[in-house]
């Protein structure tokens, strides 16, 4: 039923091919999970991808069309998504407008909201995990690091999310974090779409804190109770949060509501950080310009 015509990518635990679903002629991507590499049987990333994609059917979450075994390999048949936001941001020949960015943010947040209302944390949101379908629809992809929101007392690993998009509570080593970590990543992606360069590109985990707090201010117990209880806190350089004026200067194309929207997602204290619903219902999406129709985005 499925062909593998062209190899388009190779990750740590899988090889991705382009192919066709014979019965419908639909273009597909086949993610062939390497089984020999993982000495503990089936790879955890594959287990997570299968587990969470099986539960979600949403226009802004990549569709898992089928799964099959072949020659002792596990194959995930996914919808074909030719490009991603990282490619678009880097390709300076593509000009996009604030309305285009608004459309991408709306679709991304709808996909993230769907994960969160299914109590699933994505834990690796970044531009190249936001794939774009042939008709311009954004799809959240790569659930290899996802997990269900745990039982309250469970410990979580803080070593998740690609560094530049990692929330401050993760940088401090938090073990009881919430879906707020995904919203932080979306906030950093939003900044990057406006700047067209990475917003918080730390060289390493320590530098990531430095870069984050220099840009957005070092959190204190006043705005984030108990933040000083993290043992990595006391070595920190204390920076003041940027003034609205400084933010406006940095993001000249952004409207007042766009800056409020970004600040809501990049709120240091995870308890006060906006949820996906608060983002979706924000003024930013209600003011002009309306989000571009996805099929008309360059």
């Amino acid at each position, binding site marked *: 039923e499925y062909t593998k015509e062209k190899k388009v990518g190779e990750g740590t635990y899988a090889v991705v091919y382009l192919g066709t679903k014979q019965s419908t002629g639909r273009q597909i991507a086949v993610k062939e999970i390497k089984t020999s590499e993982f000495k*503990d049987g089936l790879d*955890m990333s594959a287990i997570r991808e*299968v587990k969470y994609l*099986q539960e*979600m059917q949403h226009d802004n979450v990549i569709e898992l069309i089928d*799964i099959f075994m072949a020659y002792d390999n*596990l194959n995930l048949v996914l919808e074909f998504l030719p490009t991603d936001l990282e490619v678009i941001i880097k390709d300076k020949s593509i000009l996009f407008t604030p309305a285009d960015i608004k459309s991408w943010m709306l679709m991304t947040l709808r996909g993230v909201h769907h994960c969160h209302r299914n109590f699933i944390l994505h834990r690796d949101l970044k531009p190249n995990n936001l794939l774009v379908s042939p008709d311009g629809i954004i799809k959240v992809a790569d659930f290899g690091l996802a997990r269900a929101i745990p039982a309250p007392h469970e410990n979580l690993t803080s070593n998740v999310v690609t560094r530049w998009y990692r929330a401050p509570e993760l940088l401090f080593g938090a073990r009881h974090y919430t879906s707020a970590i995904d919203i932080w990543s979306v906030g950093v992606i939003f900044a990057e779409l406006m700047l067209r360069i990475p917003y918080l590109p730390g060289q390493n985990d320590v530098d990531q804190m430095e870069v984050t707090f220099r840009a957005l201010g070092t959190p204190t117990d006043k705005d984030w109770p108990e933040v000083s209880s993290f043992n990595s806190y006391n070595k920190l350089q204390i920076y003041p949060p940027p003034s609205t004026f400084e933010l406006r200067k940095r993001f000249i194309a952004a409207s007042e509501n766009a800056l409020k929207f970004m600040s809501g997602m990049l709120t240091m204290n995870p308890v006060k950080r906006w949820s996906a619903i608060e983002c979706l219902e924000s003024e930013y999406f209600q003011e002009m310009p309306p989000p571009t129709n996805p099929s008309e985005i360059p």
Partner: protein
Amino acid sequence: YRHSSQYRFWSFSKEHLREKRDMTNKLAVETIEKDLFDFKALNDLTPEELNALDTKAVPLTTEEELKLIDFYAKKVQVISQHLNLPTEIIATSISFFRKFFLENSVMQFDPKNLVHTTVFLACKAENYFISVDSFAKKAKSTRESILKYEFKLLESLKFTLLIHHPYKPLHGFFLDIQNILHGKVDLNYMGQIYDRTKKKITQALLTDAVYLYTPPQITLAVLLIEDEPLITKYLELKFADNDNDDNGNEVKRKKKNSIDLTVLLSVIKECKDVIE
């Protein structure tokens, strides 16, 4: 819930469940009879041997299979409890094991060989990662025997790994009862009910209730076993169509509930019977 793989692939009517089991058994019997036929054709057996075959190599019936599956499902529970795994992982292990033998016959796969594999895969699926070597040591098994059927298990599970268990609903009802019956229920007593119900839910997962009812219905059924008056009172107050206004006479409730109380109660009582 209707979007969940649990509802789409793993909920059945009693009849459908029966058919599935009979089909699984039938396919296995056919394979065995064909093998026996070939075996007899390939070897000229003495009359005693032929007689022995005909009396001993008799395939199991569906009922006999079920007894064996239940026996080993309890072993899965005991072993995962012995490994000190969290309640939800014990539940997932039991669920994986029983689903595997809904799709496969014990005459094709010796249930003994699936016990550790289901617990191991359940740990991975619930993000409770244990390396296969340390798992093998704890379970006094070998990595080869644990990994041997991992793929086959995943395939038989139709690649569905996210299971909604009745424990979170128990926590939810524990809270909502405090809201609906506020001031009318003793919290210590509620705490005891909670603990007893939680244990009973794990037992309930060894029955077919998991295929016939939703997790919250199982929770309510076990709560009904624990304290019928309390749960009936709670559900009446929550879902009854009429309210009692201040001077006690019944008035039609403004917002229509999407739950029909009589239907709900009858479903839960049925579920309670299956569990008991």
